[in-house]
């Protein structure tokens, strides 16, 4: 790749931010006007939500397991092994559930969206769609945005639940805690603010995954090599955005609900 002069490079980056903002703005605006492509929304919900279920269950479950296993060493020093449930549930609900789910879905679906739309772009199918009188943002981006935000919310709840269950399995089976003690500690430590914080994050992550995935797909150039590049960029950028936005939302929520 040729090295660009600094001014050209900066202009390109500013233009990319502008394009992304226009795409995201239009995708949101199209939610509130007709036609809405319900068939495509449900197809995407099935692909993003149901399709991601196995990886979300597996990653959530084993994260809960390993969290219980790791935390018990530190908790033993303070004689607070009974607080394992509290630590696992708080970590899962506030942080690991939303972020890990976001990252897993990003790896699977931002890549899928970028490659699918990228292939359509390089074979002129997106232009053909526009030429046939269909707005590709309305037809391709908005359904993916709605489906990702909606399904990521529920996937996060599932990841939280199986993570806590995984922690319970390790705590009871390997650490000798009773199930009632673990679950009681988990339940009582969670307050309203924790749940709100944990369930606000997937709304942002879903938005990032869909818009970044579609953005890189829609601006793909350069044939199959370009599709590969767009896919990689979509995963990298959406993953970084998810972690950055996670920090910002956490800080905001601490400001609203306290620690």
């Amino acid at each position, binding site marked *: 790749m040729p090295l660009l002069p600094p001014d050209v490079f900066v202009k390109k980056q500013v233009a990319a931010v502008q394009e992304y903002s226009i795409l995201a703005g239009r995708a949101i605006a199209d939610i509130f006007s007709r036609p809405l492509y319900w068939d495509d929304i449900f197809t995407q919900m099935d692909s993003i939500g149901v399709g991601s279920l196995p990886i979300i269950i597996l990653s959530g479950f084993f994260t809960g397991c390993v969290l219980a296993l790791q935390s018990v060493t530190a908790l033993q020093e303070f004689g607070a092994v009974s607080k394992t449930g509290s630590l696992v549930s708080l970590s899962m609900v506030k942080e690991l559930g939303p972020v890990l789910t976001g990252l897993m879905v990003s790896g699977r679906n931002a890549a899928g969206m970028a490659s699918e739309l990228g292939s359509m772009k390089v*074979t002129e*199918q997106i*232009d*053909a769609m*526009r*030429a*046939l*009188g*269909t*707005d590709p943002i309305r037809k391709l981006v908005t359904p993916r945005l709605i489906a990702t935000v909606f399904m990521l919310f529920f996937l996060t709840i599932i990841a939280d639940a199986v993570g806590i269950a995984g922690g319970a399995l390790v705590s009871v089976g390997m650490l000798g805690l009773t199930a009632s003690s673990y679950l009681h500690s988990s339940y009582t430590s969670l307050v309203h603010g924790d749940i709100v914080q944990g369930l606000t994050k997937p709304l942002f992550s879903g938005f990032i995954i869909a818009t970044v995935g579609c953005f890189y797909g829609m601006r793909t150039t350069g044939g199959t090599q370009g599709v590969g590049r767009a896919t990689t960029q979509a995963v990298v950028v959406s993953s970084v955005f998810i972690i950055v936005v996670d920090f910002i939302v956490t800080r905001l929520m601490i400001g609203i609900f306290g620690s």
Partner: protein
Amino acid sequence: MEPSNGATPVVQFEGVSITFDVKPILHDISFSVERGQTLVLLGPAGCGKSVLLKLTNGLLRPDSGTIRVFGEDIAKLRRRELYQLRARIGMVFQESALFDSLTVEENVAYRLHEEHVPEAEAHVRVVEALKFVELEAAIDKFPSELSGGMRRRVSIARAIISNPDLILYDSPTGGLDPITSATIIELVMKQRDVSHTTSLVVTHRLQDAFMLATHCYDPAAGGMNPLPKDGPDHGIDEGMKFLVLNEGKIAFQGTTEDLVHSDDPWVKRYLE
């Protein structure tokens, strides 16, 4: 959106220029296409023919100049109005651009499904369009199961299904063998002579352009015939116009007769 009357050109370019990054693609292009006319865009590869077609359809926006389609300045149209305008335009893409996850029937019926035409009526119209391109047997196939020529024919069926007022053909014979190319040109001619649709045909193959100019479709015989040299139009279709581009600029525009007798040294060399 008002339909254009007979006096308004269907397509009108006035001083249109477009640049990609720092490379000028088209410079100060002005021409018009009247109702029922066929304009053939000729020129070497990379001279901006396909870009000109995409500008006509509003798929690209010019940096300067005005493009009017059916009398509407497309730069001033809202997004929704532009999509309504495109519903009156059919486009055949260079590489067909069929939706690879849809069957031939779904591809051809795409516009009808978007307009919520009842399924039974859509099917009848799809069969009719596929009969026009003599491909009704492939209705259930996927694009990947078709040859290049068949894909191009499906693309033509998809473009004509809604009886558009303007058809844009982007290198319809590009990459095809001579026999298949002749079949595709015959379909372009059939659409021109049977439906009298205004069309812009991009090609870099002179033989295709001159075949369009010197032949007409005979519905009774179901094939193309050369125009009689002793007829009123002296063997050349009067409705055909040519626009030759070279390095983003107009090198020639006019009738077939003018093109053949052009004194411009570059045009002469290009034709040879």
